Each structure stands twice: as C-alpha cells, then as structure tokens.
C-alpha cells in the first residue's frame, strides 16, 4: 500500500448509518489492544445515538442513528476519539480452549484442495493446522463464530469463488490467515478441513458462545471413534456440495 489513501487510521463510508474505522492493514495480535479501547470510547462518545459496534481484526464498524446524528457529525466525533487514542496494557493469557476435531475428507471436503494449493500432504496440512495455538480476535458472522489467527502462512488459501449455501454445524475451516469453526448452519466461503465435537453456541449459556475475544484455542485431532464418543456428527457432506 502507498499514497495518501493508505494512511491509518482512517474512516471509510459504510452507508447512511455507519463508519468503518480502519486501524490496521494486517492481522496482528497487538491490534486488539487498540480496538478494544476504541470500542469503549465510542460507547461513551455516541451515547443514545449509538446503534451497534462490530469490532474485528483490523477495523471497528460504528453504526449510529442517522436521525440523531448526521454522518458528518459522527465522523467528527470519531476523528476526535482517534486523535488521542491510547492502547490498553497487553494482557497475558485468556483461557486455552481445546476443540476436539476429526479431520477427514467426508466432513472436511476441502482437505485435498488445500493440500494441492499449498503443495503439502493432507497429513502435513492437518499437523500444521493443529500445531498452532490461535487467538480469538473477534466474534462475528454468526452467533458464537470466533475468528481466530494467525494461521501458519504455509496454509494460506483463498476463500471459495462461490460460497457454499449450507455449511454443516461444527465445520472447522480456514481462509487466508484465519481459522474458525461454524457454530450454526450458515452459508460460507471458507475451506473445510474437518469437524469439531465442541458445543460452540448454546442459547441458554451466559454469553451464548463457548469462545470469547482474547481466548487462546487449540484444535486437537481425534479419530472417528473418539469424535463419535464425544457426540460429534459424522454425517458426510453431500456429494457435489
């Protein structure tokens, strides 16, 4: 990136009722230390005019009520917040969550495609994915869907050209330098490697989500027998998908 447009942080139009605050170009673990305090300060600065906040890896989407605040006034307030933003102290830890995962072609139909794209064997793809301790950067996309990183750069593959209309619950997936597990059935464009037996989303559990921002996560390979014993769903993806 170069030129004026690349200076960060910057504000980008996100419609009549939103500004995208772009703080970073790249995913880094240290980004959270800046995005979290900005999220807090937006709540104070916008008050009743705030509709929603969507923090992510490198950005914060600020949604406001355009009946109370013009986009220009919202922009002015955000620029003031960014002017003297200071990062939170780095925190150690967060819980380590283990997600038992059955890596298999029948539930991870993109294993071979990822192997071909990366030049690794299927076994090496699995070892590489399971060998990394990930950090939860954001919850989003669907209830309890945790965006995790950083994926080993050897496993970096693009999203599917056309998203699947129906990704099964608990599918473990990768895209770019990110990894995740699907808590509910949704459309999705990520590459599926396997399936976890963990209960990722429970509407009766406080906070709904097993994973929270800041948690560390490890995918633990299990065989079919152990996966089934843990209540994992072995129903294969439909042929042709």
């Amino acid at each position, binding site marked *: 990136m170069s030129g004026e447009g690349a200076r960060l942080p910057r504000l980008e139009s*996100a419609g009549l009722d*939103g500004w995208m605050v772009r703080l970073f170009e790249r995913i880094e673990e240290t980004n959270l230390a800046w995005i979290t305090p900005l999220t807090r300060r937006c709540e104070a600065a916008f008050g009743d005019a705030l509709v929603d906040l969507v923090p992510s890896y*490198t950005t914060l989407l600020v949604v406001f009520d355009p*009946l109370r605040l013009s986009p220009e006034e919202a922009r002015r307030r955000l620029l003031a917040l960014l002017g003297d933003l200071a990062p939170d102290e780095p925190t150690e830890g967060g819980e380590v969550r283990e997600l038992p995962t059955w890596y298999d072609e029948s539930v991870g139909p993109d294993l071979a495609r990822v192997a071909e794209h990366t030049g690794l064997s299927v076994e090496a793809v699995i070892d590489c994915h399971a060998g990394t301790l990930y950090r939860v950067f*954001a*919850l*989003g996309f669907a209830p309890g869907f945790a965006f995790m990183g950083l994926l080993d750069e050897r496993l970096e593959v693009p*999203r599917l050209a056309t998203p699947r209309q129906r990704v099964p619950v608990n599918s473990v997936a990768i895209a770019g330098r990110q990894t995740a597990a699907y808590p509910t059935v949704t459309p999705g464009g990520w590459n599926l490697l396997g399936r976890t037996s963990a209960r990722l989303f429970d509407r009766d559990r406080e906070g709904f989500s097993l994973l929270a921002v800041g948690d560390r996560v490890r995918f633990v390979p299990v065989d079919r027998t152990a996966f089934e014993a843990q209540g994992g769903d072995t129903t294969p993806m439909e042929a042709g998908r």
Partner: protein
Amino acid sequence: MKSVMKRAMDRVTNSETNKYTVIGFRVERAGPLAQLEDAGRFGVRRLGVTQGGPADLHGWAWANHLAGNPWGTAALEITFGGLTLVAERDLTLAVAGADLAATLDGQALPLWQRVQCREGQRLAFAMPANGLRAYLAVAGGFAAEPVLGSVACVVREGLGGFDGRGSKLAEGDRLAVGEPSSAGASLNAAPDEARIDYRAPARLPLLPGAQVGDFTGQSLFRAFNATWHVDDRADRMGVRLTGPRLQCRIGSLVSEGIGLGAVQVPPDGQPIALLNDRQTIGGYPRLGALTPLAASRLAQCLPGQEVRLAAVSSEGALAAYRRFCETFSG
C-alpha cells in the same frame, strides 16, 4: 425522535411492566415463512448476533402506523403467502407491503388501511400478486418474550419469534397480542404515494464504499448502468443479483463488520446485497451500501425482476430517510 436502540429498550421495558396479552389469532395454515419482527436486535452484533427486523421497513412501518401502534411494535412478516389465520377475538388490524391476494372470509382484504376483524373470521394470504412480503399489524401489537432485547425472529440463529427460539409460524400456533394503545390511529389509510408498485423496475440508491476504486473502470460503468436481475438465491440474509461480471482488483479482505444493504462482490463477480439477517462480518470487497429504503425495496422483488443500482450522495439519501421516518414519529 428517539434512537433505534433507545426505542428497542423502551419496548423491553413495556413488555416487562405490561403483561396484558391475549390470544389474537390461531394459525390454521402456516405457509412457507411467516415470522414476528420488531425493529430488530441491536447492541449485540459483537457476539455475532445479527440485526433481524423487517426486511421491508416501509411496509412494516406503515402497517403498524395504520394499526395505531408506535414505532418498533412487533408485526407479522408474511413471505410469499400460504398463511391462514383465524381471529380468536375482535381485532383492529392493517396489512401493508406486498399484495399477497389477502382475503377476510373470502372477500378481498383492502391493503394499506385500517380494517376491523371479528372473532371467528378467517384472514388468508394466498400468493404474491405484487411484491413478496406482507406485514400484518394488530392494534396493540403481537406479543412475545424478548430474547437479547428483541422479539425479532431469526430462524438461522434460533432467536426471537413467538417461542423465543426463532421458529417461524406453524399450524396450530396461537398468537398473543397486546393491549391497544388508548390513543389509537390517526390515519385510516396510507396516501397513494406510500403504496409502492413492487412490479415496476426498481432503482436502488447506493452509497459508494471504500473499495469502489478497486473495481475496474469498466466494471464500475457496468455496475451502475446495467440492468440486474434478482436471482432465486434470495432470502432475508441477502439477495444475489445476476448480470455482467464485475471485476475487483482485490479478491478478499480481512473479515470486517457489514452494514445493512452492503453490496458485496465475491470473486464470481455477481453482487450480493445484504439484508437484515446477514452475517455480521465478512470479507468480500463491496461496491457500497444500499440506503435502508433501497434494501427494503429490494426485499420486495421476486426472482427475475429487474433492478438498477444508482450511486447517490449521503446528503440526498439522508434527507429521504428522515422524511420517511418523520411520518411515523407522531
């Protein structure tokens, strides 16, 4: 006018202090999709929980207004038709939005106006004659227990609706209604200009977004000059448009928040306009965002219908949105 969030909070407070509810309707035939929608679920998108709310804000707001309900009251969104309700008591109601060939005891039901319905009468929605989604509001509103601050029904997430678990209406359901406000409705019928002909080709105002410069010049020209067709892959999450293949120099972004009406373009070059039940975060580059009323208009289009995208400035779009909302602020 109070903020959307504040209104949602007020609604929750009301439902806690005012426990008056009675059964208003019984579902005799459920049809493909009928669900409860208040203004939506706000302040929880950071948990990955979507916005929900009426896919067509215009039809929903008019139905409530004509029934004498304040902004944010829960109404029924009926997609496609096939729904038959039997009134369990005398009710004041209004239907706005799509014409789904609705009848009351076999007689054509007038739309966009207040109607009296007697106990035992059958209210039936057949199939789309004009538009896709009809809104049924009853005086006092439909009543249900809020989940995360809202009764908005999101089937995919299993949140909201009459049972709190995101279920669409099913045969045999009994639908609770609240106490009508003493003020009542001021208008009996919507003016002609509010009654949209959804069959006409739609012009959808769009605010260009940050990645607009990453599309090729030819793609941008096509995006705003071509006729797009509404694909049959369309639901409350989003509507795919088919037409010329748009090319963007960036294939994907780091996933980031997505607003209502965002028009994303996956590598296959066919845009997807994201609606109320969209995923909260995504990583495809975007042309920009439809205005809230443009997203509503698109939600009334049937597959195969023609639409055009029109780049607009935020000033004009904001003025139009404010005019729309002022109608309902009384």
